């Protein structure tokens, strides 16, 4: 495989990935916590109350980042699914599988906080509005992915079927979004991504950006951690996994495991399908 020369491809070996994640995750947790503390402080104490909605709007600092994360994670899930289907890189399936629960959680949280926001401002917890409905459908897509992945006894097969579903779903997401948008719309207009600049106070934007960063980093940390566990459980008998489980993975073991994985993924040419 020519791709062997690309340096980051070495993290397609579960052992190398495990070591990388082991190093990254301890930095990500405090970074996420710091961003969240700063963002929440800005959001609750510095940002001015909204002239229409008073303090009720402040849930936006959680609602907007979770909604964005939900969509972004679904896209990422489909990308990893495509990588897995095309190149059969096992790590891609592990990552996709690790992303799904976090994505479902984020989508659920955005629906939940949306309901809490809707109660004081629209006077109802739920309306069949375009964005709410399409977010609900996104949640079902995540649940379907997880259910299909879990339903197959053969992990490899389940992973491939689920990846295909993720791709079909990702192609459908814009169609669903526009059809639902067209079907009904009473959601408030776009207020962040406007060409004439955000229609919000600077401190609000700062708080929102900090919270978005916090959610990104949190999602990264939790997905990497889950992927580590999944990588271990897929190769429980191997030397590197045994060593890693007790926290003593040496550089030498890692390199040997990576070489094994490379051998494993080698013979798959363009007609690896079938």
């Amino acid at each position, binding site marked *: 495989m020519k791709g062997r020369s690309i340096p980051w491809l070495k993290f397609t070996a579960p052992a190398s990935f495990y070591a990388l994640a082991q190093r990254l995750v301890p930095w990500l947790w405090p970074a996420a916590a710091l961003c969240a503390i700063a963002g929440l402080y800005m959001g609750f104490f510095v940002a001015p109350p909204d002239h229409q909605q008073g303090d009720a709007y402040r849930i936006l600092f959680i609602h907007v980042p979770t909604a964005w994360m939900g969509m972004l994670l679904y896209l990422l899930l489909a990308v990893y699914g495509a990588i897995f*289907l095309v190149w059969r890189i096992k790590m891609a399936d592990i990552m996709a599988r690790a992303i799904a629960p976090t994505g479902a959680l984020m989508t659920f949280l955005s629906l939940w906080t949306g309901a809490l926001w809707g109660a004081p401002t629209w006077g109802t917890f739920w309306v069949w509005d375009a964005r709410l409905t399409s977010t609900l*459908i996104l949640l*079902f*897509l995540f*649940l*379907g992915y997880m*259910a*299909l992945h879990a*339903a*197959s*006894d053969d992990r490899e*097969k389940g992973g*491939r*079927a689920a990846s*295909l*579903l993720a*791709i*079909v*779903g990702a*192609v*459908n997401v814009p*169609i*669903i979004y526009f*059809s*639902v948008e*067209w*079907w009904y719309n009473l959601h408030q207009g776009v207020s962040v991504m406007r060409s004439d600049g955000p229609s919000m106070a600077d401190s609000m934007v700062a708080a929102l950006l900090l919270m978005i960063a916090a959610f990104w980093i949190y999602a990264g940390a939790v997905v990497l951690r889950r992927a580590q566990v999944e990588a271990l459980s897929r190769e429980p008998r191997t030397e590197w996994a045994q060593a890693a489980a007790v926290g003593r993975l040496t550089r030498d073991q890692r390199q040997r495991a990576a070489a094994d994985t490379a051998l494993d993924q080698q013979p798959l040419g363009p007609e690896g*399908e*079938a």
Partner: protein
Amino acid sequence: MMRPLWTLLQRDISLIVTRRQDVLTVVAFFVIVITLFPLAIGPEPEKLRTIAPGAVWVAAALASLISLDRLFADDWRDGTLEQLALAPQPLALTALAKVIAHWLSLGLPLVILSPALGYSLGLQGIELAVLAASLLLGTPILSLLGAVGAAMTLGVRGGGALMALLILPLYVPVLILGAGAVNEAMFAAPYQAHLSLLGALLAVALPLLPLAIAGALRITLD
């Protein structure tokens, strides 16, 4: 290349025709689901009229879903599917032929029956024609999408319920456009836009989804 596919189409249709009860079951299911709506909501004609497009479309989507459950199951169990996958014809075309046969024998009866059921719920005149037209354009998309789900859940635990979870979210745009067209017609508004978009969806689905079905079948047969 078309001859074997033609033969496959004929074989599938004759298989379904010999097992007539399958067709009858699906049609009966469609009618019963629609019957449940007046029973649950009440017999007032105005009320029924407002829900009529949605009721017929939901019933059609559910009927399509349950009829697709076994699209590949029998062929998979007796090994025919593997032989079809080994044949020189592209698997995507084979899958398309199977879906077409399935739609002709199980989807088309619903389309033909729909004006009568729409009438029973209080739709009239042009609305009935729009309802049939929207189903004519929409149910093939439902069949193609459902076939992807059927291929994915072959030989998987709890296939039927799982397939509903996987596929029903993907049915949403078709449902919105189909029922929307009839709703527009009910308010004497232009319904052509909805029908055109349904046609556009069909035009996109027809070449792309057979590829997805073939991919899913390959994964199952692997």
